[in-house]
């Protein structure tokens, strides 16, 4: 009889402690869920150079705008809300820029974030906004862009990648023009 077998004869093998294993699995699972949540919240906005998320926007007039159909164009995606005071600061300038660039292959889209339709339509009417606007149904578009608030504007280049990101309102029309022109040249 070898030493090992002698030892096994004296000391019985320890039973598998399923309870302890289950506890560890639960604890690690809980930590994984919390960790994934933290990573998502800490990610921040998608940055310049990243591929722009594909989305469909159902406008207030009922038509659907699909990003996939806008390939090869520069797309200005502006997130706004009627309750957002800083959004008012850039509303007229965005419409003016839309009028200037609409014949140059630049599409302006307004994504209405966490708002009520009646207030949103009143806002569009007040500032004379004519480019396509629609609600962010289920906040899916804002989640795809990982926005942190409104206003935020993302300019998608012809190659489908983000060419410009503006957090907060544009200060002037020239700032919008500069950003759009730079995105068109890329």
């Amino acid at each position, binding site marked *: 009889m070898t030493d090992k077998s002698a030892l096994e004869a004296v000391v019985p093998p320890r039973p598998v402690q399923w309870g302890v294993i289950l506890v560890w699995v639960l*604890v690690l699972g809980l930590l994984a869920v919390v960790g994934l949540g933290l990573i998502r919240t800490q990610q921040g906005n998608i940055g310049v150079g990243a591929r722009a998320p594909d989305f469909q926007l159902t406008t207030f007039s009922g038509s659907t705008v699909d990003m996939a159909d806008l390939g090869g164009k520069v797309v200005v995606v502006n997130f706004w809300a009627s309750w957002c005071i800083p959004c008012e600061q850039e509303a007229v300038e965005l419409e003016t820029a839309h009028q200037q660039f609409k014949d140059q292959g630049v599409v302006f889209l307004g994504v209405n974030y*966490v708002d009520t339709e009646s207030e949103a339509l009143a806002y569009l009417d007040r500032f004379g906004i004519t480019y396509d606007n629609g609600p962010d149904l289920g*906040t899916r578009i804002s989640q795809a862009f990982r926005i942190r608030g409104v206003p935020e504007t993302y300019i998608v280049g012809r190659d489908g990648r983000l060419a410009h990101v503006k957090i907060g309102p544009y200060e002037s029309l020239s700032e919008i023009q500069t950003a759009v022109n730079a995105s068109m040249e890329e």
Partner: protein
Amino acid sequence: MQRSLKVYLVLMAIAAPVLIASAAVQPPPPSDDEVNAIAHQLYCPVCENVPLDVCPTQACAQWRATIRDKLAQGWSEAQIKDYFVEQYGERVLATPPARGLNWLVYVLPPAAFLAGAFVLYRAFRSGGQNSEPLVPTAPDADGDPYVARLEEELRRRS
């Protein structure tokens, strides 16, 4: 003069039942309590961790107005909550629906509690079996040669 009075009385006699009936059919406008009962179950994504019924922002005031409008239109609580989920996503709900990954919210806490109770039970049980006696016992003569020798010596002398 008398003729116009008669016409007026006839018109009133015709119109009165209609007015009374319409007043009886018209439901009362939703009260603040009714609005807040639903608003309390919703969270505005803009104001984190603040229920809609006590949220002071303009966005939340608009949402409460929407709830009031929907209630006035005869919508049920479930219909209104579905509408908000469709518009703003499931994260507006104070209680997430038990499907998909949301199940973890309902399963993990009680499972962790039960697992903790099991671990405590095991710890107490094994601790009770292995615990040392609090009162020291007399030394075992069989195990200690000096004690055995001492006892032998005492027996011889007694």
